[in-house]
């Protein structure tokens, strides 16, 4: 795979993410509840962090807050020591359901971030095509999103975020809607990209296998209002394959996570 486009000199370094006594409230004004309460977390630059927790616990709110879409009620979020107060292209967010623009062809969806930076059409399409190749979608640039399958759409979504050379990649159950085979392919693809791109990843999931397969570290959240229940290192060697998921150490850790998740729910 050709990753020249993102390994070029201009690639910025991965960023650290810090949550300082973060409390985030959600809901309508008359019924506000805390989705997160007093969360402290430090993510070193370049780390692949997975966030696990029972459904509805505020995992997505955590990502939306880091992305800058949701404001903190108390405390703050720092990326490389700078306070987050609005969305920024260097913090790329990928959702479970794709948010591609249906009226733009795939290549122009991917090139969108560059268009917003005022880069001319030929240059941005060239970069977008290289990224499409990186995510395994060479030749699909002229299609409209309506023509692609769910897995392909998520690949385009990832390429569109990557074109901004994000220093933090925020992923909100991005593969949850895919079938098992496609999901594993996408996970492998993501690890491959992460090894080539210098970026910190915060990956939210409710799937323990996925967290263990992908992450260097797992943070387990409690039920709402979410607090950090456990902070685990995932020591398995890379590259990880289907075989790794059958390793006794992997299964032991899965059992530990299951117990934690059961207690949390």
């Amino acid at each position, binding site marked *: 795979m050709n990753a020249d486009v993102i390994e070029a000199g201009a690639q910025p370094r991965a960023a650290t993410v810090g949550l300082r006594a973060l409390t985030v409230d959600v809901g309508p004004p008359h019924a506000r509840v805390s989705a997160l309460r007093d969360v402290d977390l430090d993510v070193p630059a370049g780390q692949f962090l997975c966030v696990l927790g029972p459904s509805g616990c505020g995992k997505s709110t955590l990502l939306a807050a880091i992305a800058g879409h949701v404001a903190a009620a108390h405390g703050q979020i720092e990326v490389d020591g700078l306070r987050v107060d609005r969305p920024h292209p260097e913090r790329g*967010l990928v959702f479970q359901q794709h948010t591609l*623009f249906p*009226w733009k062809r795939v290549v122009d969806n991917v090139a969108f971030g560059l268009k917003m930076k005022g880069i001319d059409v*030929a240059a941005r399409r060239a970069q977008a095509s290289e990224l499409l190749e990186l995510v395994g979608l060479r030749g699909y640039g*002229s299609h*409209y999103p*309506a023509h692609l399958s769910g897995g392909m759409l998520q690949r385009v979504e990832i390429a569109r975020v990557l074109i*901004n050379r994000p220093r933090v990649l925020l992923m909100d159950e991005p593969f949850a809607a895919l079938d098992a085979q496609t999901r594993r392919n996408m996970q492998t693809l993501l690890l491959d990209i992460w090894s080539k791109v210098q970026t910190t990843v915060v990956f939210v999931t409710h799937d323990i296998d996925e967290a263990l397969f992908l992450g260097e570290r797992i943070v387990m959240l409690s039920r709402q209002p979410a607090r950090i229940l456990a902070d685990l290192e995932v020591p398995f060697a890379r590259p990880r394959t289907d075989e790794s998921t059958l390793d006794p150490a992997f299964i032991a850790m899965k059992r530990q996570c299951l117990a934690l998740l059961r207690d949390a729910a």
Partner: protein
Amino acid sequence: MAVTLDLAKPRTHEVPKRASTARSGQNATILRRRSLQIASIALCIGVWQLLVHARLSLGIITFANVPAPVDVAHALWGLLHSPKLPMHLAASLWRVLSGFCAAAVTGVALGLAIGRHRLLEDTILPPLEALRPIPAVAWIPLAILMFPSSELSMVFITFIGALFPILLNTVHGVEAIDPRLVATARGLGTGPLALYADVILPGAAPAIFTGLSIGMGTAWFCLITAEMIAGQYGIGYFTWESYTLQNYADIVVGMALIGMLGMGSSLLIKRIGLALTPWYRLRGEKR
């Protein structure tokens, strides 16, 4: 431009081979349906000819004064060769175009603003909503009083008729845009102006074209009425004049012309809309 053309190329390779075999069967079905549809129209014209020929009178309705299709065809032939037709057509087309274009610009611009901002929705929309239930035709007397030239008053009626469908469809289209798309665009570094150009306008485009198409229909409807009352020249005026001059065949010719012009212009808008939103048709194809 060259890049755009390059992009379009690969799509031609994808047409599946089985399409050619399926297509001949489809063609036969389409042919049969078309001939049925044409036969139905021919039958209706035949019944019309018979009714007129028999001078049928049922008490509440009479065909005694209705021109026969043959007479109408003669009158149409005559009108096509008369210098009056281009004059009437030009007058009507100019009025419809100016009224419709003014309504399109106003309606889309206001709709985009109202759909995005609660404050504008609460300030601009209420007076417009109060005027909306008034049919454009009811404006005719006031319009004649308000505008010094009858020409302008007719354009105004057309404008009023076209404005509301365009405005309301645009507002609806803007409000129906997935907020996640807006959030995503912001996250990818989109400023307020680019948000309109790259997300709001294309997102609302299908609804806007629906509004434009409906607006074109109501524009013709209002114009014809206005012309019958206030006009000199124009297809509506021609139709009404034919009645007062007792050229009954010309009435039907005028009616047919009005129908064709209205249908043609609405169809044109739809075609333009489809050409500008090619992605919109795809959504149905996949499911």
